[in-house]
């Protein structure tokens, strides 16, 4: 064997990476040891810049400093991080010298030794001493990795989560804890993380999975925080198995779907019920009407009176159906408010035009009191109108003598402490009034007061209940003041802007 062959043999089988390069970093020789450590072949590297091939981007500056030092002083030794062809990181001990080629130009020869396992061992020892007890006392699985992504310590919770024996996780690359489909992104994640370490969470909002030793997966939430120790930055990952939470979330989602379906079924039922009840009512109210219009022929007084009873009962039933549907809609949160500027005075004038004839037909005085200035509220016109129509309608219904008065008071005139500064719409009557004991239950569904009182007209028992619910939807309320046989006063209090 010639001297040259022996030299080749030695270079080829040296366990460390032997690399010859020019001062600008161009690689001239790349021994087999370098290929074994870094994964690049000589053909891939020779003629290209060393730092572009194996130095992580964030360490380029540091690398240039070391090279300058070797060129100036003739030699240097340091520890650094390199990146393999497959993207994984490793620790190396570098020892480099400056040489001169035949023409007297400088070259650099470097021997780089993979010390990753040694570093993990050293770090692990340090971490075990400092943090073992602390880590084992937390509920989450905790894994600490060094800058090359190797696990230096894992607490027992993490070992249990991922199915490893005690101590078995040490030295593994953290990427192994993720299913392969996440690894590519994770390597990028991790490299970026060392550039800008700060506390944050992975997997919140996206479905991240952990990979057990046996290959099974489980949903995880991971939060990362940097940890400085001995001049190095480690990454602490707190890992939580969220299978249970996922199960709850799914169960909840299924329940919500069920509820939505049940709600739809209820809506269909209500619409169907309304349709089916109205269909026979159409004939009842319709033919009672034709008879009372005397289209088929004259009626005697008794017949007419009895038909009027059928007619009013039919209308009562219709009102009941309408009110029940309204209540069902409010209960289901299906009432959509259309907020717009509402001119309260104009609204009350409209109601006056609708109901004053009815009051006068009963021999009552109907009076409307409006303030001099225009009062505009941001509210739902339809709901407001429905409430006031109900209050005025009731007042007319329950008053036999005297008057019904509709009054609009601007917010400033409201009693202090009501908390509502918009407006008060008050309906006063001189009717039969409500006993104090009845006032409390006035707004409950089907809670009729004055029951059994001779001559007391019948309502659906839902009008005030509905009005109060609508008033609440508008951010206001209805209050009542009344005295038996002296009349009642109902006020709709509305919020201001």
């Amino acid at each position, binding site marked *: 064997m010639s001297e040259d062959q022996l030299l080749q043999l030695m270079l080829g089988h040296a366990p460390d990476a032997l690399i010859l390069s020019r001062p600008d970093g161009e690689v001239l020789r790349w021994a087999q040891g370098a290929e074994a450590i870094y994964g690049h072949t000589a053909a891939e590297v020779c003629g290209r810049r060393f730092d572009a091939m194996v130095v992580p981007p964030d360490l380029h500056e540091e690398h240039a400093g070391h090279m300058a030092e070797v060129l100036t002083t003739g030699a240097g030794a340091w520890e650094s991080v390199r990146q393999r062809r497959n993207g994984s990181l490793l620790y190396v001990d570098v020892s480099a010298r400056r040489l001169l080629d035949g023409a007297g130009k400088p070259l650099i020869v470097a021997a780089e030794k993979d010390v990753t396992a040694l570093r993990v061992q050293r770090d692990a020892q340090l971490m075990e001493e400092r943090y073992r007890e602390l880590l084992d006392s937390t509920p989450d699985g905790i894994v600490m990795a060094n800058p090359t992504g190797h696990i230096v310590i894992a607490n027992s919770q993490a070992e249990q989560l991922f199915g490893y024996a005690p101590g078995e996780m040490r030295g593994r690359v953290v990427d192994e804890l993720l299913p392969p489909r996440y690894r590519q992104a994770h390597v990028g994640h991790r490299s970026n993380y060392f550039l800008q370490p700060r506390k944050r969470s992975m997997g919140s909002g996206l479905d991240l999975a952990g990979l057990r030793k046996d290959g099974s997966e489980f949903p995880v939430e991971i939060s990362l925080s940097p940890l400085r120790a001995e001049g190095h930055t480690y990454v602490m990952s707190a890992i939580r198995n969220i299978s249970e939470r996922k199960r709850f979330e799914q169960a909840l989602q299924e329940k919500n779907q069920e509820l939505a379906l049940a709600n739809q079924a209820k809506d269909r039922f209500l619409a169907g019920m*309304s349709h089916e009840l109205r269909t026979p009512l*159409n004939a009842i109210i*319709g033919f009672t*009407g034709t008879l009372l*219009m005397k289209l088929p022929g004259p009626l005697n007084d008794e017949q007419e009176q009895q038909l009027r009873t059928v007619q009013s009962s039919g209308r009562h039933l219709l009102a009941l159906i309408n009110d029940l549907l309204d209540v069902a809609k409010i209960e289901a949160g299906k009432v959509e408010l259309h907020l717009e500027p509402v001119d309260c005075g104009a609204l009350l004038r409209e109601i006056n035009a609708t109901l004053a004839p009815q009051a006068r037909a009963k021999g009552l005085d109907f009076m409307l009191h409006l303030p001099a200035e225009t009062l505009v509220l941001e509210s739902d016109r339809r709901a407001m109108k429905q409430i006031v129509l109900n209050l005025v309608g009731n007042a007319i219904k329950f008053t036999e003598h005297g008057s019904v008065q509709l009054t609009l008071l601007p917010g400033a005139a409201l009693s202090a402490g009501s908390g509502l500064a918009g407006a008060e719409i008050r309906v006063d009557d001189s009717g039969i009034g409500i006993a104090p004991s009845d006032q409390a239950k006035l707004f409950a569904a089907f809670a009729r007061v004055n029951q059994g009182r001779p001559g007391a007209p019948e309502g659906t028992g839902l009008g005030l209940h509905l009005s109060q619910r609508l008033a609440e939807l508008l951010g206001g309320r209805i209050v009542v003041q009344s005295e038996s046989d002296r009349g009642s006063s109902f006020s709709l209090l509305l919020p201001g802007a």
Partner: protein
Amino acid sequence: MPATLLVIEDNPANMELVRYLLTHRGHTVLMAVNGQQGLAIARSSLPALIVCDLQMPVLDGYQTLAALRADPDTAAIPVVAVTAFSMPNDRERVITAGFDGYLSKPIEPELFVGQIESYLPAALRGPAAG
């Protein structure tokens, strides 16, 4: 001058009510118990107006309207929906579908004829009109 009107309605009691009111006013009323029958009568008799229920067997009110509008002979006949569907968005749905009018059940017998006649040319609104 009285008009010839077509009523499409599957409920006998409600059909009788509408027929009675319109006939009493002097109009001629043709009757159909479902949309398909209604279409056939509409095409053969070309009524001045059609009163149509919505929920019916065979062909419902919406399908009937579409078929009437698709036929050049019947496309221009006013069609008024008279329906027990009276949820707040039902009127909107009916008008959007292309009906000329919407009346909800129960109808008001005192007003019904006038409401229907408002969709007729003035000359055809009842015996005294014109």
